[in-house]
């Protein structure tokens, strides 16, 4: 199978920080806003270079969303950053009215998403954010998989006209995509071609799926691996084409079942090409304290669980 090299583990939030700075250098309309999490969101470099374009909002996320909408109406491109739970669940109605329905050019920078936020535990670990954001008409939902892709996705989000939800995380994970590969919103990326099973993944589960594909290859199973970095709008054509080829699908995500990528993919396949699907996700549970890797294993989201799911999917053909 195609080889991917980890060029050194990095956190995806740092990819956001670099992308934000580059986007800010390219376009003076780009603003960075945060609710007392400048350091956690890696906005320090942007704030140092553009102090007048960095807007501290204090621990008041609801107001931050509205103020960002106002700034966007005047022609700015604000990125509002906080932990994923606090820029989605906490402010769902504000995002709904001020950003989605109001159709303002606000970029929601959602860090520490999923269970890999780790030790802070369940109050801070959202496994529901994709469901909330997917539900909003017109919202673009991005979930890049590594440092480089998150950097490029941030630049693409700044260039796109309209509301964007950009999800990334806290832990250091392998950095393996091409740093110069421009991010194309709405396009699935086939990382490895295979004929026996399709592994569809997003965010941190993409690397895990590549590892699973390697393990499967050792057993003679050829897995196709697709990186869904854009969850909405979903690249339905790529999913259908792959399912047609392999005949069975696994969907892996650091999110719960309800409203996640798994349901989105299953919806497409049910409509266009009924195909067996096995889901790898957080099911219907809250998280807990722990290290990111221990949590990924405990909640069944790592490479061994994905490989096991692939065999289940093949057995359903």
């Amino acid at each position, binding site marked *: 199978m195609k080889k991917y090299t980890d060029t050194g583990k990095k956190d995806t939030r740092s990819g956001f920080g670099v992308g934000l700075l580059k986007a800010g250098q390219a376009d003076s309309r780009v603003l960075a806003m945060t609710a007392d999490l400048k350091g956690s969101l890696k906005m320090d470099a942007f704030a140092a270079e553009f102090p007048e374009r960095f807007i501290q909002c204090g621990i008041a996320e609801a107001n931050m969303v509205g103020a960002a909408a106002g700034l966007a109406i*005047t022609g700015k491109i604000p990125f509002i950053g906080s932990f994923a739970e606090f820029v989605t669940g906490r402010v769902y*109605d504000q995002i709904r009215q001020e950003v989605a329905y109001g159709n303002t050019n606000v970029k929601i920078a959602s860090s520490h998403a999923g269970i890999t936020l780790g030790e802070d535990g369940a109050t801070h670990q959202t496994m529901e954010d994709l469901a909330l954001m997917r539900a909003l008409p017109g919202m673009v939902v991005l979930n890049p998989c590594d440092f480089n892709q998150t950097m490029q996705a941030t630049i693409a989000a700044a260039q796109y006209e309209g509301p964007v939800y950009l999800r990334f995380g806290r832990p250091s994970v392998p950095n393996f995509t091409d740093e110069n590969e421009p991010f194309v919103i709405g396009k699935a990326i086939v990382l490895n071609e295979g004929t026996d099973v399709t592994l569809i993944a997003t965010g941190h589960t993409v690397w895990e799926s590549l590892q699973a594909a390697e393990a499967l290859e050792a057993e003679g199973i050829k897995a196709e691996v697709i990186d869904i970095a854009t969850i909405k709008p979903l690249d339905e054509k790529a999913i259908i084409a792959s399912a047609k080829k392999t005949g069975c699908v696994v969907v892996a995500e650091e999110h719960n079942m309800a409203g996640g990528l798994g349901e989105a993919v299953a919806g497409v396949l049910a409509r266009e090409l009924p195909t067996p699907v096995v889901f790898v996700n957080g099911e219907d549970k809250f998280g807990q304290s722990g290290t990111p890797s221990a949590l990924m294993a405990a909640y069944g989201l790592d490479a061994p669980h994905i490989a096991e799911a692939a065999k289940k999917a093949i057995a359903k053909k």
Partner: protein
Amino acid sequence: MAKTNEELKQIATQVRRDILRMVCMAKSGHPGGSMGSTDILTTLYFNVMNQNPATWRRDGKGQDMFILSAGHMTPVYYSVLSRAGYIPVSELATFRQMGTRLQGHPSIRKGLPGIFQASGSLGQGLSAAAGLALGKKLDKDDNYVYCLCGDGESEEGQIWEAGMFAVFHKLDNLIAMTDWNGKQIDGPVDQVAGEGDLSAKWEAWGWNVIVADGHDYDSIQKAFELAKAGKGSGKPTMILFKTEMGHGVSFMAGTHKWHGSVPKPEQLEQALNELGETPLGDF
């Protein structure tokens, strides 16, 4: 050309007629607060704001901007926009009907000129207005941003988040108003939520606070002049307009009962008779 008090009164009377006829045709809507803030919005659009329907654009460049945070008061908003030349007066007949640009609460999705942002879910408009004001500061655009909130609406915590933000970022180009009628849908404000002294609260928050009579054109205009003079102080201004819900019609005035309910046909007739006709004419 500034309108005289007599001219303002005539427009406001017509706006109140529009409000009542709109909600009665739609068999729904919010006449009470709309009638209570009619004199404020009439004065704002005709004598205070730097606005021009012919050159209106959503980004508000080079003009004053207005956000109706208490989004349910669309009857007065749409009527004033129509009387100020943003939309045909005849369009008021489409209020709340299928396909209308005049949605129950303000929408930017139907191409309605004059609307800068969606509102309706309460407590959010002051944040959006603060964002507009900060945008104008960043662009060195010297114009003002106005925002009308309700006193019941001010029970929302986000109003006070926005209040803190506007002071911290020195938004002295932001002029907020509260329609201080002491009423909300479930009853008098002091019996629903015990909101307390809004004047003392906004002062404690660090705002310039002005208390004015929301039905006296001299008082309203003086309040706006003082508020505009606040630019340079580094502080945003809150004008607390003492108003009466349902003002202008005897049986509707001073009660919360008409917040979101609509007169019956014979009540409409009585209300229109009390207001009297104006040379501006009904839609």
